[in-house]
């Protein structure tokens, strides 16, 4: 029974060699046990720590998903045991709980992910100047101390500035600008991002500005609409939280819902009374066919479809009688639709040829919209993420103006998307500022358009405006946050750029695509590891989050990273960031939080602050009276403005203008809605890419439906006979969460193919297919569906590219491997206009994503 103990005697001879083995490990070397390993605490301390109990802490869900919800984490000594969502109040249609989606509920898998970026690291073959740059994306990595990492980054900034100048440093996002602006500045980037052609145009032709305000009424008023047209929007996927539930209330109140979308979406399934599939990027053509129908069938006495009074009172440019001063009368919208001068009447037949909808269906929808008393005409941004779509928002407004569905109860025409989905109007509750002084101004005014930048950097020349090409020589890229290399048009060229420049650095939570192609990666904290703050989404609610855990591993706040780099560039922390403590910053946000007053006329402080609070927090501040205490805020994690129908917080967009346009003119040149807008046409021309007419004429998209044909007239298909669109998918918020194990399992990220297209290509459910465009190739597992219109491929937005270096083919289904760097109009990132084809993949079939990098688990 004592085999081993007996054995010991045999080791007496060799023990001299073995005993001291541990010492050998540390002989002459840095002692790993000095910094790592266990420490002995005193008895009292150890006993206290063993008693620690858990607490529910409101935790941030901070992603750019289009929603905003409440998360709570049950935390014991920095470890999250479980999560829950809003259970502060009973759920009701007027005041729904702010409940989280699958992604929020998977949040702790992100923060505590095994693949969190834990330490600063550099590429092994990096040298000042880049070293072997081709190895970016494939190199081995070496862990660094923070000092080493920060020294490398600042030395490269100095070296590159001295050698190539500040105009060679590109910053794609994040607060590193605070340091670099002091140091001579950097080149930036700009683009239409999610907004597409709604980004800058709307205020030129008379809708609200388009970025924050979307010209629609609030969610309570939606219940007054008899007809809701949902044009290319899928809140069930792209606006989680309560928007879809709000739409459901409108439907329950009696609204008929028409969904126009290439995909029979979850939204169409839940809300739709009718689904009308349409070729991507041809929405404008359908609207012209509808406008033709309205003109043809309108009879002011017996069958009024057009609101002539509204057009005359509130708009310009519809017909030759309503033209703005100085404009060519022949250049009116009505004559364009009728084809008076161009010989092409925009009949439903004409439209049908382009958009793929039967002419009679177009007529029916037009008449239904025209004859409804109260209709909500809502569109998402997806139909505007189309190249050459700068006239589309103006066309959408024109339908609203023709039918008068604007600026009255139950009547609205505008965008329903992101935080404002189905719920327009100013915020009812908001957080305060953190008191950090604004960043110094950037002395460099060069900025690259997203849709052009990779190409521009490769060419050494970018478009700065109309007839204004400028040289550019980018040698350093700092990705302060975001997912630029993953989310911008023409990713293949982006990877080439990353392998050309002298230095690339990324802050990040994981080895995202940005980080993968970097020389140095700097591990950043998530909001769960920070002091706390506010998040906002829908106008009714303000979300507050607290620190869940101390920073994990060696992660640091972005602000700290920026400050440390700034110091190495010769600036004090005060110069870079204002030197306000995290606690004070949070306190400032709380004291500055405002809520709408009972009359709905002004704002008042949200949080009551006592002298005791100020002492407890050890901050500077003044007591104030508000609605709730700090303790309530810290416990609940959300403040929701109580709503009821007919309350003082409702909102009708542009109501005052419609009531009295002379007294309350719009900000346009004419003060009215501009169906003829010289300002819009000139604005678009100013960008230097492509031009539009002052009236919303139809411009086929670059790489749109028409380009799927080699010969449009005899309908002969070309090499890329299909169109690929990028739906927002619940696996991810843009690119975030793509690596999350639960979400990988729940949302496998297959490519959606119509059964017809798949059968024509011999592809079956579950086959691996290769999808190819003019710009790249990617693999995915096929999901065959009747829910997708034939001719359309649904490649979900945001998967992290995984290029096979030998074949050059991406295996992850990265949407931007297929898109090109093609810039049109206002610099639109037109992801949804890309032509493609697919075939059965003859190589090794893909494993499902959830089995990627498999681990043997007990």
């Amino acid at each position, binding site marked *: 029974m004592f085999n081993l103990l007996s054995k*010991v005697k045999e080791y007496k001879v060799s*023990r001299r060699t073995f005993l001291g083995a541990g010492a050998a490990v540390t002989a002459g070397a840095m002692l*790993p046990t000095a910094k790592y*390993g*266990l420490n002995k605490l005193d008895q009292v301390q150890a006993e206290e*720590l063993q008693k620690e109990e858990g607490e529910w802490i409101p935790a941030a869900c901070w992603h750019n998903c289009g929603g905003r919800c409440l998360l709570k984490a049950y935390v014991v000594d920095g470890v999250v045991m479980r999560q829950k969502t809003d259970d502060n109040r009973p759920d009701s249609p007027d005041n729904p709980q702010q409940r989280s989606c699958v992604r929020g509920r998977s949040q702790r898998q992100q923060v505590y992910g*095994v693949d969190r970026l834990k330490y600063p690291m550099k590429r092994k073959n990096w040298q000042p100047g880049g070293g072997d740059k081709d190895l970016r994306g494939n190199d081995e990595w070496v862990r660094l101390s923070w000092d080493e990492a920060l020294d490398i980054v600042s030395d490269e900034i100095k070296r590159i500035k001295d050698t190539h100048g500040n105009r060679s440093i590109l910053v794609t996002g994040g607060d590193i600008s605070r340091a670099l602006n002091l140091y001579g500045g950097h080149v930036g980037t700009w683009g239409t991002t999610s907004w597409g052609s709604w980004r800058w145009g709307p205020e030129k032709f008379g809708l609200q500005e388009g970025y924050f305000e979307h010209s629609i009424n609030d969610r309570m008023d939606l219940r007054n609409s008899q007809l809701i047209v949902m044009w290319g929007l899928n809140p069930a996927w792209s606006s989680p939280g309560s928007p879809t539930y709000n739409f459901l209330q409108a439907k329950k109140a009696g609204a008929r819902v028409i969904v126009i979308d290439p995909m029979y979406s979850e939204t169409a399934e839940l809300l739709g009374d009718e689904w009308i599939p349409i070729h991507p990027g041809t929405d404008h053509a359908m609207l012209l066919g509808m406008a033709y129908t309205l003109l043809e069938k309108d009879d002011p006495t017996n069958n009024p479809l057009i609101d002539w009074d509204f057009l005359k009172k509130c708009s310009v440019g519809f017909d030759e009688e309503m033209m703005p001063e100085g404009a060519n009368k022949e250049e009116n919208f009505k004559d364009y639709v009728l084809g008076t001068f161009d010989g092409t009447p925009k009949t439903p037949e004409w439209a049908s040829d382009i958009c793929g909808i039967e002419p009679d269906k177009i007529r029916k929808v037009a008449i239904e919209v025209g004859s409804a008393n109260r209709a909500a005409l809502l569109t998402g941004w997806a139909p505007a993420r189309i190249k050459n779509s700068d006239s589309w928002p103006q066309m959408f407004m024109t339908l609203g103006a023709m039918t008068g569905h604007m600026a009255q109860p139950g009547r609205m025409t505008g965008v329903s998307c992101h935080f404002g989905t189905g719920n327009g109007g100013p915020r009812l509750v908001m957080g305060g500022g953190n008191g950090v002084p604004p960043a110094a101004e950037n002395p460099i005014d060069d900025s690259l358009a997203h849709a052009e930048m990779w190409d521009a950097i490769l060419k050494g020349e970018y478009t700065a405006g109309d007839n204004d090409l400028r040289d550019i020589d980018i040698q350093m890229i700092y990705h302060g946050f975001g997912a630029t290399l993953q989310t911008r048009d023409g990713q293949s060229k982006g990877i080439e750029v990353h392998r050309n420049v002298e230095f690339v650095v990324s802050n990040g939570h994981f080895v995202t695509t940005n980080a993968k192609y970097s020389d140095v990666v700097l591990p950043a904290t998530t909001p769960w590891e920070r002091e706390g703050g506010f998040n906002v989404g829908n106008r009714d609610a303000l979300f507050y989050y607290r620190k869940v855990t101390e920073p994990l591993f060696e992660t640091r706040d972005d602000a700290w990273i920026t400050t440390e780099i700034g110091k190495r560039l010769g600036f004090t922390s005060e110069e870079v960031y204002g030197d306000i403590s995290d606690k004070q910053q949070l306190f400032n946000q709380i004291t500055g939080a405002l809520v709408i007053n009972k009359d709905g006329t002004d704002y008042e402080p949200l949080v009551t602050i006592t002298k005791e609070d100020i002492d407890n927090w050890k901050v500077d501040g003044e007591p104030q009276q508000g609605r709730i205490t700090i303790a309530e805020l810290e416990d609940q994690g959300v403040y929701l403005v109580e709503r009821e129908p007919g309350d003082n917080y409702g909102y009708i967009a542009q109501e005052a203008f419609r009531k009295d346009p002379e007294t309350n003119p719009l900000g346009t040149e004419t003060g009215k809605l501009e169906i003829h807008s010289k300002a819009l046409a000139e604005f678009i021309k100013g960008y230097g890419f492509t031009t539009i007419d002052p009236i919303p004429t139809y411009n086929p998209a670059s790489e749109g439906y028409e380009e799927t044909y080699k010969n449009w007239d005899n309908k002969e298909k070309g090499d890329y006979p299909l169109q690929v669109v990028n739906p927002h998918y619940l696996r991810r918020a843009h690119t975030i969460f793509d690596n999350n194990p639960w979400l990988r399992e729940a949302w496998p990220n297959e490519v959606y193919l119509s059964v017809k297209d798949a059968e024509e290509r011999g592809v079956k459910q579950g086959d691996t297919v290769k999808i190819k465009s003019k710009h790249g190739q990617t693999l995915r597992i096929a999901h065959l569906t009747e829910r997708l219109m034939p001719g359309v491929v649904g490649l979900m937005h945001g998967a992290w590219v995984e290029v096979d270096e030998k074949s050059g083919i991406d295996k992850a289904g990265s949407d931007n491997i297929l898109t090109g760097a093609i810039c049109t109009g206002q610099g639109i990132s037109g992801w949804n206009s890309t032509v493609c084809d697919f075939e059965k993949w003859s190589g090794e079939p893909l494993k499902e994503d959830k089995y990627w990098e498999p681990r*043997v688990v007990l």
Partner: protein
Amino acid sequence: MNTVNESIKVEDVLLLMDIRIEAYDLLRKLFLAEPTKEMMEELATRKVFDAFPFKDVSSTIHNGVNTISSFFQDHSPTDLNVFESLHWDYTRMFIGPFQLPAPPWGSVYLGEEKTLFQEETLQVRRAYLKYGFQSKQHGIEADDHIGLELDMMYQLVKLAKQDVLSDNPQSFLEITRDQLLFLENHLLSWVPAFSRDMKKTANTDFYKGVAELLYGYLELDRKMIDEITDYYALNRN
């Protein structure tokens, strides 16, 4: 039984404790931090692994040690390329930045969620606290890191040795029982899977060997604890 007892002396028990202390010291240092060049050179030149005991009673230890020894016969860590391949192997498997092929934390293998800082982390933290220990990287590094758990065993065996020397059998038996609990509840509940992943995905034979040695040694140590407990209990009666 008595004859066996008579043939085994307290010095033998102490020697066994010393061997266990050395084994855990070696193992913890192999995992607690990245390898340094000096450390690898010492391990190779001193032929530490050649001298590792119990090869003849555990085929897993035998395989592990042989794999390491033959690696060092063919590859000298004084060669920078050799050292860098070892260093990258450690970095790749245990630090990142990519998906870790052999994540060195218990919660990854024990929880449903394959994430860090989970319930297992807390349990291990409490087991440390019972003896007044806390990670030097508390809250930064997860407590169920393989290096820390091995350090815990190292610390516990050292405490137990003190009890032998100071003739405190009650405390000795309690600490030894806690060693057994810690092994069974924590290390041995996930190291088999971890070791399999590590052996499968290590680039170098050195770490493939370390994977086997780790698992083999923990299994054997569990048996040693049984013997020591029995011997000590019997001897004191």
